[in-house]
């Protein structure tokens, strides 16, 4: 679950999940919501959604860091690089994995830049501002984005 918190110049996203992997997945889903213009009726049409899933292709991204906060911010920025520089237009986050070397990997399904799926907003970066992951029954974090 995520929701956006407005700041005057920038934007923050508050994330909540049942575990760490879901927290990281939710962070990327929040970015999709912010920067990708999905096809009309995407949310309401199961058939369309399924068709898109079948015709999409998958890309994996990875990030490392000293701690979970650094890994999260690095993964989000890796995701932004993939979308804003490499032109990938992800619609789904399929899988989040962690290895024992402190790396996090995410599998994304989506489309190439020449599809009808557009980038509607530029986000400069996910920032480290006051970032602190709370763990427990519910995992929470707030990430400030530089827009």
């Amino acid at each position, binding site marked *: 679950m995520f929701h956006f918190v*407005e700041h005057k110049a920038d*934007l923050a996203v508050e994330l909540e999940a049942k575990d760490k992997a879901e927290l990281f997945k939710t962070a990327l889903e929040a970015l999709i919501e912010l920067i990708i213009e999905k096809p009309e009726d995407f949310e309401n049409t199961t058939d369309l959604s399924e068709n898109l899933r079948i015709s999409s292709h998958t890309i994996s991204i990875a990030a490392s860091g000293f701690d979970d906060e650094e890994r999260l911010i690095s993964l989000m920025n890796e995701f932004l690089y993939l979308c*804003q*520089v490499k032109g990938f237009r992800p619609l789904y986050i399929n899988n989040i994995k962690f290895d024992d070397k402190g790396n996090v990997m995410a599998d994304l399904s989506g489309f190439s830049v020449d599809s009808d799926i557009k980038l509607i907003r*530029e986000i400069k970066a996910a920032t*480290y*501002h006051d970032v602190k992951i709370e763990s427990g029954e519910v995992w929470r974090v707030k990430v400030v984005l530089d*827009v």
Partner: protein
Amino acid sequence: MKKETRMPEAKLEQIAPYRWRLSQDFQPGMNVPGEIIASESMIPHILSDNTPKQVANVATLPGIVGASLAMPDIHWGYGFPIGGVAAFDLDEGIISPGGVGYDINCGVSLLRSNLTSREIRSDIPKLVDALFNRVPCGVGSEGKIKLSGNDLTRVLEKGARWVVEQGLADKDDLEFIEENGGMTDSDPSLVSDRARERARKQLGTLGSGNHFLEIQVVEKIFQPEIAEAFGLYKGQVVVMIHSGSRGLGHQVCDESLKVMQGAARKYQLDLVDRQLACAPFKSPEGQDYFSVMKCAANYAWANRLAMSGLVRQTFAEYYGKPWQSLGMSMVWDVCHNIASVEEFAIDSSSHKRKLCVHRKGATRAFGPGDSSLPERYRNVGQPVLIPGDMGRASYVLAGTETAYKTTFGSTCHGAGRVMSRKAAVRATQKGNIARKLAERGIIVRSRGKWTLNEEIPEAYKDVEDVVAAVHGAGISQKVARLKPMGTVKG
């Protein structure tokens, strides 16, 4: 007479007109006090924005000298506040990518002309369309200049000079750009492949967000003598460009912040906010960041000068005359996101020290007599370009000796947002912004779906209030007010 304003979390003491002190005991670990330049009416808003806390956070960084400063356009930012100025001792102090920001050398340039608003008012819609079509803008926009690897290296080394060497601008322009359009000792070999990749197709592009290109008219002159030195007069048409280092700067900052997370641990720097991540100025990490930051700054100067060339071409084609005969020379180019080594005397001492001055959303404002200024401006101080919003006004100010003594030669950088982007969109969804502005005589073209809604004038502080505060504090003085006639947004 001293006044005090108490809020739940911050106490500001007025120490002079428009100058407010945040006591060093406001927060544990502050090495210096904070100081905010603002009018009394701005203070409640500043306090409600939690920015004094960010001013205090910056004051905890090692080697900070004088005070952690904030300009009147201060608003909440990640890590350092937007509108923040902080100077650090070169031996004891740090350098921080968060103190510069993601858009390294975001800044403003201003071209004058010998056209008047009366002459060209009816041309504005076509001119704005022509500029909109010629100057690439919008999310991820790419330009017509495709840089080879070697060319990009030269841009990162030479900055605006490279643009002149390609015949895209005039060599005389360089004299009227801060640092002559290029910081020395940049090392392009430290710029990552990713940063280079982002840079290769974006030279000469405006970008999105609050960046703009605007045809303006000089509406009012406040200081005729200084305006004359700047080549400005009432009724004159000028063109302002607001942009920065594009994706290159974002990439450099992002990568450097990650390096600095490790550096802060390595040098045992106790940070109150990870976005303040930094390294000792003279450490390898500090020097590497300073070098790549210079590369990005040089790219930004080249970017704005390349766009100046596109503006000149557009006007020249439209009027069928060379741009030189339209008088479209450079007034000045300022950056407002930068770290720079400069010399200042601290605490009324006559002894000058070299300091690493961070300006994040703040503009250099050197006064009369500064040897780094071109001869034309040396007796009056440097031009300071303050972009406002697309509905009201922008300003040309002049730097002062007071700025040199009190704010490390710095002043404000713009109007500063008072409304979030989303709130601005909500407030305007039923209105046609372009039509409303056209009814006020301002022609606007925008690439982005929501850009005009996000950038409505009401989303910003009135630049009049911000400029009145810096003028009142004496850290710059009003020279000319510029009114928008036509605006291109990303």
